[in-house]
């Protein structure tokens, strides 16, 4: 698993969180204390102290207890330093630290007052100047931010984050020449600063130097390929440079991931966060970035900090789901409900889907219904409910559910199409046909039209009008050539008529669009077997298994072909047995056991085949499946004869 990366600051303006610190600032306070002592010893009152802004007193009542305690502790430290008339650097550090804590909880006005005081008391301490500058920048006071960043750079000319931020600030303040100089200096410090390249690219773009813009933006992308936001500016630059095709390619890749700045001081603020909310925040970030294990751990920490937090429970459930722990997910979704989660309908929806995934249909339907009790307008839940019932063969219930959706959303084409299917499954062919014809009279996308035509074709086929069905399937394929469904239906129809070469062609067209449809592979292979084209049947099954390696039915079909094929060139009983055993291990189904028995017999291991087949017969009889048991018994007799021989 990819390790969870150290977070960077995204751009400059956006708020921040992360880890790290600037080692270069360590010497500052000690030196300043010494200076302060000299001032005091000379008996002069420090005017800096008199110009301080009042100590902020924000209302903390809405924060978690842990956060309140943390902020009050820091506040107390400042009060203590004020009361004890602590030396300026000490007081500056207390104000600065309080400022950092306010900053991380977005109490920016309070943070600003504290940073100002810290900066006033200890102007030599770069940290406070820098934090104050960042607050100025993020609140749009650009000239003041630029001045402060310049002060930082006077003391630390190699401070790359300050240089980049200065460049951005100047650019936003419509001072392009100064911005360009600042960014070029940033690149002189670190030629691999993606953000400096990015801002330079934007500047060049704005001033009509498209080729230069392209160079900088391409470099930014090269340094941070995940920064998909850059594609947008690059597309504009390429377009302006007359490279339209390349511009289109870039435009198609535009995303929202921003260019990041390595900014240790700002990133260190993130470590100050306390309480469950801090963990939830980190978890959410990890989740968005796809680090589910890290997100899970953060949610667990949030729950440890506040077990009654429904948001944390729900977040953990979602992560467990991503990590395939269905039971864990179910447990925590339930806890979120018990704790009064605000979006209970959504939680019930998730729980319903979970139960259905776990083959607990009734429990799943119950959750869906509970979601709908909370929000009757949630058509996505109604749709899931209807589909679950249709999948379970409860077509009447499904019909009623689709009807309810259509009462709420008469324009819902998907519900209408599925209603037609559900009616067809109940044998109500005329009604089903009426529904599909009604759908076709509406304003549809090509995909929707193709689907409706395909459904109508299937209905015609059920009614025995194969010619009409074929025409409809072909119309559907013409309307939406990228719709696999019409080709698949056509393949089935042609196969049913014994028109195997045409059926193979249709299945192949379907598979070219959707190679993950096992039924299309099976249809095509069946058609090839029926034309006794064993070689291509085997080849296509091998390709199918590469596409869908875990499909038991495809593997079993190949196993049976390998052990029963009349063509000795194709037959491979050893591999057939191996495949059959793999399928059996995975599925433990009666069919797969029969395939194993078949393979054993073909391999000449008649006694083992007899033994296994006898068990199969016994289980089928015990289950009351007498027809299947009779067929299995006939097979058993064949194996016995083989064993005797």
């Amino acid at each position: 698993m990819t390790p969870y990366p150290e977070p960077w600051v995204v751009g400059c303006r956006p708020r921040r969180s992360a880890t790290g610190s600037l080692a270069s600032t360590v010497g500052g306070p000690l030196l300043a204390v010494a200076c302060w002592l000299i001032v005091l010893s000379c008996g002069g009152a420090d005017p800096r102290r008199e110009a301080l802004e009042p100590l902020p007193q924000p209302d903390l009542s809405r924060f978690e207890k842990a956060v309140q305690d943390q902020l009050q502790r820091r506040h107390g430290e400042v009060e203590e330093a004020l009361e004890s008339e602590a030396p300026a650097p000490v007081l500056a550090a207390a104000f600065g630290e309080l400022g950092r804590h306010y900053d991380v909880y977005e109490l920016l006005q309070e943070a600003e007052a504290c940073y100002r005081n810290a900066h006033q008391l200890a102007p030599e301490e770069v940290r406070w100047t820098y934090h104050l500058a960042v607050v100025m920048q993020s609140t749009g006071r650009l000239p003041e931010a630029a001045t402060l960043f310049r002060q930082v750079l006077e003391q630390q000319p190699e401070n790359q984050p300050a240089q980049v931020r200065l460049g951005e600030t100047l650019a936003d303040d419509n001072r392009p020449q100064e911005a360009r100089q600042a960014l070029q200096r940033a690149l002189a410090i670190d030629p691999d600063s993606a953000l400096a390249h990015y801002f330079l690219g934007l500047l060049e773009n704005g001033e009509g130097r498209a080729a230069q813009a392209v160079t900088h933006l391409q470099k930014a992308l090269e340094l941070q390929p995940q920064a998909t936001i850059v594609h947008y500016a690059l597309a504009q630059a390429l377009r302006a440079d007359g490279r339209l095709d390349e511009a289109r390619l870039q435009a198609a890749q535009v995303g929202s991931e921003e260019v990041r700045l390595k900014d240790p001081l700002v990133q260190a603020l993130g470590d100050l966060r306390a309480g469950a909310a801090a963990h939830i925040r980190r978890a959410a970030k990890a989740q968005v970035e796809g680090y589910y294990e890290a997100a899970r751990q953060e949610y667990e920490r949030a729950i440890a900090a506040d077990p009654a937090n429904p948001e944390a429970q729900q977040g953990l459930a979602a992560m467990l789901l991503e990590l395939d722990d269905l039971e864990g997910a179910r447990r925590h979704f339930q806890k979120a409900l018990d704790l009064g989660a605000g979006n209970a309908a959504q939680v019930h929806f998730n729980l319903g889907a979970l139960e259905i995934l776990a083959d607990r249909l009734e429990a799943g339907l119950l959750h869906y219904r509970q979601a709908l009790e909370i929000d009757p307008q949630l058509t996505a839940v109604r749709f899931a409910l209807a589909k679950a019932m249709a999948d379970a063969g409860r077509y009447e219930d499904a019909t009623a559910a689709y009807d309810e959706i259509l009462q709420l959303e008469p324009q819902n084409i998907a519900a209408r199409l599925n209603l037609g299917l559900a009616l067809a499954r109940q044998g109500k062919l005329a009604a089903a046909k009426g529904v599909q014809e009604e759908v076709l009279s509406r304003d549809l996308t090509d995909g929707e039209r193709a689907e409706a035509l395909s459904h109508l074709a299937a209905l015609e086929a059920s009614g025995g009008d194969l010619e009409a069905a074929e025409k409809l399937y072909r119309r559907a394929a013409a309307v939406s050539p990228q719709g696999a469904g019409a080709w698949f239906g056509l393949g089935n129809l042609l196969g049913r008529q014994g028109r195997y070469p045409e059926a193979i062609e249709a299945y192949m067209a379907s598979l070219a669009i959707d190679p993950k449809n096992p039924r299309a592979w099976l249809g095509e292979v069946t058609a090839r077997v029926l034309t006794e084209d064993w070689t291509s049947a085997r080849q296509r099954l091998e390709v199918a298994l590469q596409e869908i390696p875990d499909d038991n039915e495809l593997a079993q079909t190949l196993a049976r072909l390998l052990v029963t094929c009349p063509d000795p060139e194709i037959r491979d009983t050893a591999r057939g047995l191996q495949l059959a055993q793999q399928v059996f291990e995975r599925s433990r189904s009666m069919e797969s056991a029969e395939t194993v028995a078949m393979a054993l017999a073909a391999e000449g291991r008649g006694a083992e085949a007899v033994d296994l087949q006898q068990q199969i017969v016994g289980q089928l009889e015990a289950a009351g499946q007498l027809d299947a048991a009779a067929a299995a018994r006939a097979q058993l007799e064949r194996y016995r004869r083989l064993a005797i021989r």
Partner: protein
Amino acid sequence: MLELPPSARRRWCHQVGALWWLSFLVACGGAAPPAEDEVAPATTSQIEVPQREIFSDQSAAAGLDFVHFNGMSGELYYSEHMGGGVALFDYDNDGDLDIYVTQGHLLGKGKSLEDATFPPAEPPPFLDRLYRNDLSLDAEGRPHLRFTDVTIESGLRVDGYSMGVAAGDIDNDGWPDLYVTEWNGTNRLLRNGGDGTFEDITERAGVGEMRWSVAAVFFDYDRDGWLDLYVGNYLDFSFAVHRECTNDIGLADYCGPVSFKSVADSLFRNRGDGTFEDVTARAGVTQEAAPVLGAVSGDFDGNGWLDLYLANDEEPNNLLLNQGPDAAGNVSFKDDARLSGAAMNHQGKAEAGMGVHAADFDNDGDEDLFVSHLDQETNTLYLNEGGGVFSDRTVESGLGAPSFDSTGFGTAFLDYDNDGWLDIFVANGAVQGLRDLMLAKDPHPMHQKNQLFHNLGNGRFEDLSAHAGAALQLSEVSRGAAVGDIDNDGDPDVVVHNNAGPLRLLINNVGQDQQWLGLRLVGATVDRDQLGAWVDLLAPKAMGRRVRSDSSYASAHDPRLLFGLGDSSGLAEVEVTWPDGRREGFADLPLGQYSTLRQGQGSAPRVGG
């Protein structure tokens, strides 16, 4: 199959500037605030301060007593802070602009009016209102405005939770009709009977959109002579999916739009027989669902066919370019925003688009775009570089910094001083509680001042808000804004819809001092305003304007055109490109008054045909 709750939240909106000092007064009870000029933006020090109020609020004097009831009771339902809108249209064809304004109602199960944070100013039922303009001239020939509430006698009974309104004559009978967008109900098409009454023909016309819509645009996209309808839908929000959100300092607050699913839009083609067909898919506008709040039509790529620009809330905007008819005669659109440069700001960041307007602010012959946004973003000015290619000129224009602390909604280009350069008005109001106001226990802590930006004619604007009069010092939760010459004196006035607040009528006091040309464009055989027509003014100055009622936020503008002419004199000459693509010239038009141009009565064009 499993849908996870959205985790992202809108950022905590904070306020700097004057309010920054307020927090210290509240917190410490201490020092006096700085003088106003200490906190005003530095740029305003160089502004030539007007001698009198540019706009003055005359709503009370004119009898506009509407107060919006948003039905809030502390639950922070997402929809309650998003309404509403206003339309300026001449429903009785008496030559002056009347006002239609959208209303809300009480929200929440089991709530009573006693629970309302802001009790309604009127007893139920809470209806959208129609005010008739009874404009007259006083003894000295000055306009005297008086509005009369004619809701009841007009037969209008729109009692849903209305959001926005569009105006256009859908049946070519010469009487402008209305389309009202709703939350938690069906949008309504209200046909103007021409006798002072309206009829709800929604069902018959087939435009009963049930999803939450805000923006609607009447435009003849297929050039068949009938106004079609684009409905911009927003989010899938209902009481059932209402959720509690907190801001970054832990205070209960409105959620952001990412907390709810977006819904797709609808395009309805006017069949010309009083009914519409839904051609959304066929016309290629079945783009991914996006939270549309602002919509405007215009010919952005100059191919002669009307396009659409959609401002989306925290998602990339759409530029639906009209491809014209295919071989079968079907007209379709193609979204080209990402390549055209109008999808996001110059950094590639999608912003929270609220209101939008399109006009030729730099008088170079094509339509530019202005989109209002959330605070901590900036409003964005997209300059049309020709052919539908845009560049973000926000920073260079000077419009960025002054909008950083405000959340813009209704907006319009308007030449308030008739100098021939289009200025910008923005109605502001936050969408989450402003920190200082929340701490001060303000019951509606999102109010902000509206803004006016003066076009300097060199690509730059200056913020005149602080000097535009008392009306722009009001701090309210403004949403819709409609622009039109309400007192017929030749300059643009503004009506502002305030959420949970009074309707404001901002009368322009300065534009009439300069010369102007007013035009109304009507069809050859019907007196329908020719929405979408483009007028090139050839003399005494050169500039172009489009006839429109769409744009802004949830609102409809005066469809007449005003050309500000400064100190010009003489007669005017124009060339018109009608919505069907034909072009005609009209000369000898008198200045200082409105003229009606009828299609087919002009001369052959001098410039192009």
